[in-house]
């Protein structure tokens, strides 16, 4: 949607105001309503679909494959496809590379995918963006998070030590015995006493900076008047890599001050837990519903 200079200026002024006024009357730290469901694909190890209120929709499927650990340097492969755009489109490949490097840099995820001394699981995360009005980074991140939460890997029954004799891993036949990839943080009180092995997927939050104000989950109109886009990753209760600025199609890009940067930092610190908790709740609810079916 293209706006006239007058409309853009009006929008910019209201977003710059203190307190800012967003066109949809949201708080600065409030996400748009989403409709989320996990475990929708029977042929994938984990999957999720999220619909945004502006009509954006994203489907993620996670599949695992046993590979010899030495044959590959990257155990996670992320592939983003945006409906209506070419296959090697720059937006799609930027998104793929952001998520691929973020997930591959997680040591504990690599540890979790390790099967034996020779073999590991390799995860293929395929993202399909069916439609998007605003920048799809935030939507894709939420969907990947939910899909990874619902990912289950078959239980290994052969021995874990095959350093002496190579042995092809054998798995339990019963899918009910499969172990979840992530630890599900049940309640907030639980998250305080988490152990080192505790791991939940990283969550990348996209923000738009307008003047001194920061807006989480910007709409297309807000992106156009933003100084710059900014994304910060939140994982396991702390801020992690990557923290990056991103071109989100603003008409008048500008620099940001370091105070804005610290403000963005504290915003993510504030809402990271809340967002991940609500997605976890979605997953737990879906899981309960599917187990009561049988």
């Amino acid at each position, binding site marked *: 949607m293209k706006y006239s200079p007058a409309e853009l200026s009006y929008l910019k002024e209201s977003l710059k105001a203190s307190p800012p006024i967003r066109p949809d009357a949201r708080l600065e730290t409030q996400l748009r309503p989403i409709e989320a469901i996990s475990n929708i*694909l029977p042929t994938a190890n984990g999957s999720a679909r999220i619909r945004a209120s502006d009509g954006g929709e994203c*489907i993620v499927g996670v599949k695992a494959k046993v590979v010899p650990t030495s044959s590959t340097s990257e155990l996670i492969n992320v592939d983003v496809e945006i409906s209506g755009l070419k296959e090697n489109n720059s937006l799609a490949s930027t998104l793929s590379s952001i998520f691929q490097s973020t997930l591959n840099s997680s040591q504990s995820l690599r540890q979790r995918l390790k099967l034996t001394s020779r073999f590991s699981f390799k995860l*293929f995360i395929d993202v399909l963006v*069916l439609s998007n009005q605003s920048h799809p980074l935030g939507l894709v991140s939420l969907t990947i998070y939910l899909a990874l939460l619902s990912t289950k890997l078959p239980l290994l029954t052969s021995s874990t030590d095959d350093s002496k004799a190579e042995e092809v891993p054998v798995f339990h036949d019963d899918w009910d015995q499969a172990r979840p990839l992530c630890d599900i943080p049940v309640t907030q009180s639980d998250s305080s006493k988490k152990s080192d092995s505790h791991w939940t997927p990283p969550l990348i939050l996209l923000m738009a900076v307008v003047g001194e104000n920061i807006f989480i989950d910007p709409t297309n109109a807000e992106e156009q008047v933003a100084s710059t886009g900014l994304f910060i990753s939140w994982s396991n209760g702390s801020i992690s890599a990557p923290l990056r600025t991103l071109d989100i199609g603003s008409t008048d890009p500008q620099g940001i001050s370091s105070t804005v940067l610290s403000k963005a930092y504290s915003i993510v610190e504030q809402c990271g837990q809340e967002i991940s908790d609500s997605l976890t709740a979605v997953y737990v609810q879906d899981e309960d519903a599917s187990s009561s079916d049988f």
Partner: protein
Amino acid sequence: MNLDSTFLSVNISVSPFSTVDRKKRPRNDRRIQECAMSIQRTFQEAIMGHLHSRTEIVISLHVLAQDGGFFAACINATSLALIDAGVPMYDYVSACSTALYDSISPLLDPNNAEESDLPFLTVATIGKTEKVSMLLLESKVPLDRLESLIAVTISGCHSLRDQMDRQVRKHGHLRITKRSE
């Protein structure tokens, strides 16, 4: 391009996670292109194109999971989506596939494993008629069995048409009650 009618363009994208083994298919895969072409031709006949001349309808199909009956499912989904979009059509286009087991007995709606071992054909009909609007057969079938195979498939198509009609009516009812509230 025929300017007196509506132009249909069909895109099919098959997700890498749709099958048991992950496989990335290029978008210009020959088989998928062919499939899109057949769907376009089938629906060109089924819609009342003359009502909206010089227009285009874009149909995007995303295959998220598949286990046999790929082509038939694409046609049925397109049919329902066109109805949801309010595109005027003569009747439902319903499709179904049948495999031939042991060169004698027909198997309705084969899955992936059956499709890979047995010869099978896909038929689409418009409405509850015996009129075949599309027939796809890519393997060898004895000629004397063909007729019975087509007959079984058509009856499958008819029962699918009823199913679809029931769902569409249910959906329509839901939308009307929502509007009147």
